[in-house]
């Protein structure tokens, strides 16, 4: 990595932070750079302080890092909060119509509607497109790519708006260029295959669509909403039934009903929404109805920090619901895993007739990562539903060795499909015959035996002979991976083990990955080490030490390295 540039764009909600970072990130990827972005925002519609960070490099990126090289301040607060983070050779671009104090002791570039697009009514557009252009000017990247992106994005808004964007980008680019090139991306080579910039929840939306999703119901709640939106925006094109339910209880109830009647159904929520869904977890398990449910974690308990990140609901989702009930639990760490595991979730739900949960969080959901088409392999959709005439009387819950009974749909033949949340006989009718109860409960739980054979999700990286193993799961993959890379560059041997398939716990694969580890340090985004407890429960192995973070912000390599001091 010869280039590692951090661009922070901050302002009040509604000022256009996303209007700058979205086209900028894309333009840089089209130019050939590797980009990793994060979003940091508060639970409000207008005002407050939010920022996006765009990290740019000539090498692949998997994590955010600390420090700022280019600070774009759309208001005074951004400057006050982030000025200290700017590196000595860095530069501040600021909206001079909003920022009253000129930044001292650092290179700066003032933009305002009057200087970027004088004598127009372009307003914020001038500053937003102007800042985009200025950044490209500063890093010595031609403006043409940005201009065509802005034309694509704003084409529907009419020639005047497109013209303002085009002109502002060009004028801003010139203003940036005139500052010289403190950071140059001019030498970055264009990749042979075009790359794409995609966020975790977007990748999961594509996974769901590729896996044949045709029904989604949900209730808006941050950070789950971005996935619900990403699917809904594509629903008309691909024939997906979308319903915003009256509450999370109905959202999951509808998804279970739709699945029972033959849809490939998904729902999802966050924190408190999953509290409401809990009763339906049992219903899906008891009626043996396939269901994919995404739980986008956020810090709690209760409402907690609505827009921040957390890995604190692992145990909640693992144990939610009455009695013992079969389920699978997946937790992707990258957009590519998000895509693949969503596809896998639909497949497992369909074949095992169980609820499958995917745990994400705000960091995973909103962070954009540079990927290639190879990260998104084609999918063949396969249904496990039985059609056509049956031999003999059909029993929805026929006792089988695998625990999986042939699944039919109501209304597709003379076979009646009877499902019940009460304990039931093989033909689906409620019963209080306790022998039947034992047989049915055993049958449902037997599914886990087949299921665990299909799970692995263990990623191992680093040196096999390293004394130290970092153990993590879900969205912490990237920051831990970069920590490993940095340590290896300093010739410090270290290993990492990342888990993305958590239940039924892949004991054999995890034991194999950890059995020779001298010292294990768990890295988790919660206060008590929930994965470590699960690890101990399932394998008897336990981490020697935990690095935990529960302030609502994602891990950075700097944080992990600081915590590791004295441990290596």
């Amino acid at each position, binding site marked *: 990595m010869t280039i590692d540039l951090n661009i922070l764009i901050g302002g009040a909600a509604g000022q256009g932070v996303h209007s700058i970072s979205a086209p900028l990130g894309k333009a840089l990827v089209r130019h050939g750079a590797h980009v990793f972005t994060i979003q940091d925002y508060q639970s409000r519609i207008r005002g407050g302080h939010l920022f996006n960070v765009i990290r740019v490099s000539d090498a692949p990126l998997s994590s955010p890092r600390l420090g700022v090289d280019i600070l774009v301040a759309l208001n005074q607060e951004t400057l006050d909060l982030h000025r200290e983070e700017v590196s000595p050779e860095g530069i501040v671009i600021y909206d001079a119509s909003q920022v009253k104090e000129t930044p001292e002791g650092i290179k700066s570039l003032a933009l305002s509607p009057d200087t970027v697009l004088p004598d127009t009514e372009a307003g914020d557009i001038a500053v937003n497109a102007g800042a985009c252009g200025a950044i490209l000017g500063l890093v010595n990247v031609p403006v043409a790519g940005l201009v065509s992106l802005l034309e694509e994005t704003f084409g529907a808004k009419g020639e005047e708006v497109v013209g303002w964007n085009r002109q502002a980008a060009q004028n801003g680019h010139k203003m940036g260029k005139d500052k010289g090139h403190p950071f140059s991306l001019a030498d970055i080579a264009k990749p042979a295959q075009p*790359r794409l910039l995609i966020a975790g929840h977007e990748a999961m939306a594509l996974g769901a*669509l590729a896996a044949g999703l045709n029904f989604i119901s949900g209730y808006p709640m941050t950070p789950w909403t971005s996935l619900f939106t990403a699917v809904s925006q594509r629903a008309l094109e691909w024939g997906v039934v979308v319903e915003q339910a009256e509450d999370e*209880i109905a959202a999951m109830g509808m998804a279970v009903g*739709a699945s029972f009647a033959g849809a490939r159904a998904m729902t999802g929520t966050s924190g408190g929404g999953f509290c409401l869904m809990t009763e339906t977890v049992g219903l899906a398990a008891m009626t043996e109805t396939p269901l994919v449910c995404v739980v986008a974690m956020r810090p709690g308990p209760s409402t907690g920090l609505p827009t921040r990140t957390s890995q604190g609901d692992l145990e909640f989702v693992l144990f939610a619901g009455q009695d013992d009930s079969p389920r699978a639990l997946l937790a992707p760490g990258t957009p590519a895993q998000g895509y693949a595991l969503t596809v896998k979730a639909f497949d497992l739900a369909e074949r095992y007739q169980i609820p499958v949960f995917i745990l994400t969080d705000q960091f995973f959901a909103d962070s954009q990562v540079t990927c290639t088409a190879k990260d998104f392999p084609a999918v063949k959709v396969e249904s496990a539903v039985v059609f056509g005439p049956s031999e003999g009387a059909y029993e929805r819950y026929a006792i089988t060795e695998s625990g999986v009974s042939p699944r039919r749909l109501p*209304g597709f033949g003379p076979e009646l499909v009877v499902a019940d949340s*009460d304990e039931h006989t093989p033909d689906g009718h409620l019963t209080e015959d306790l022998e039947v109860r034992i047989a049915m409960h055993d049958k449902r739980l037997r599914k886990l035996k087949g299921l665990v054979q299909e799970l692995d999700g263990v990623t191992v990286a680093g040196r096999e002979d390293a004394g130290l193993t970092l153990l993590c799961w879900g969205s912490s993959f990237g920051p831990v991976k970069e920590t490993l890379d940095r340590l290896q560059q300093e010739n410090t041997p270290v290993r990492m083990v990342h888990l993305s398939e958590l239940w039924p716990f892949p004991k054999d694969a995890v034991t194999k990955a950890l059995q020779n580890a001298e010292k294990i340090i768990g890295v988790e985004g919660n206060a008590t080490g929930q994965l470590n407890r699960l690890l101990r429960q399932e394998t008897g192995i336990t981490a020697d030490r935990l690095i935990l973070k529960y302030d609502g912000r994602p891990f950075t390599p700097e944080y992990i390295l600081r915590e590791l001091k004295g441990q290596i």
Partner: protein
Amino acid sequence: MLPIEMYQGIESAWCPGCGNFPMLKAFKQALAELEIRPENILVVSGIGQSSKFPHYVKCNTFNSIHGRGLPAATGCRLANPNLTVVVTAGDGDQYGEGGNHLLATFRRNPDITLVVHNNQVYGLTKGQASPTSEQGYQTPIQPKGVPYPPLHGLALAVAQDCSWVGRGFAGMVDHLKELYKQAINHRGLALLEVLQPCVTFNKVNTFKWYQERVYKVEESPDYDPENELWAYQKAKEWGPRIPIGVIYKNPRPIFEESFAVLAEGPLARQEIERPISKLLEDFY
């Protein structure tokens, strides 16, 4: 007309003399007369004595959880619009636990027949007050009586533009059968509340109590079920006289029509082909 024996379900666990029995008889007769075969009907229920109903009819069944029949049934309709979907719920199930779903379903207007068994008491849990228990009705939990007035489900339905609203009485089987038929034939949400005495726990609102009060509203000289204000007055009428019959008819587009994909039939029958290269286009 299909043979009524075709709808014979499993043996019931209701109390002898329960108001659910005449409802079961009327429902099966309605299905037989409408010639809806067991495999083409799906009965969804929640939890309560009323929710055992689909087990006692031969049909496709989804016996869900307390109060949640409507969301599950709505999902079923959105996956397969060819299914005739009936929800059976109790007064506690639908007006209490499932209240929010009732409000939202009035707005959605899916093609579902919602039958609320109203006996003004909780039977399955042994005699507590329900949302429709009379003010002053004494229970083991409220020995001094329920302190507030009952919920008027039908008035709520009229006020929220439910597209078909009616009330039946378990003591008048033929009249009830006709209501079932109309409700099932109605395209859109039909709320049919059925007065259905609980012979074990409700010693106030008995068969005799209802018999003395109910009257066929369609025989009123001012019968006008397409008039919202008239319907509202009838839906609120509860006292010495209680109307039964079709109270409100308000035809409007059904929820399922808002999804173009459902015009092509059940989702399970549709080919799904979504090339990943096309899905990725937005992200370059």
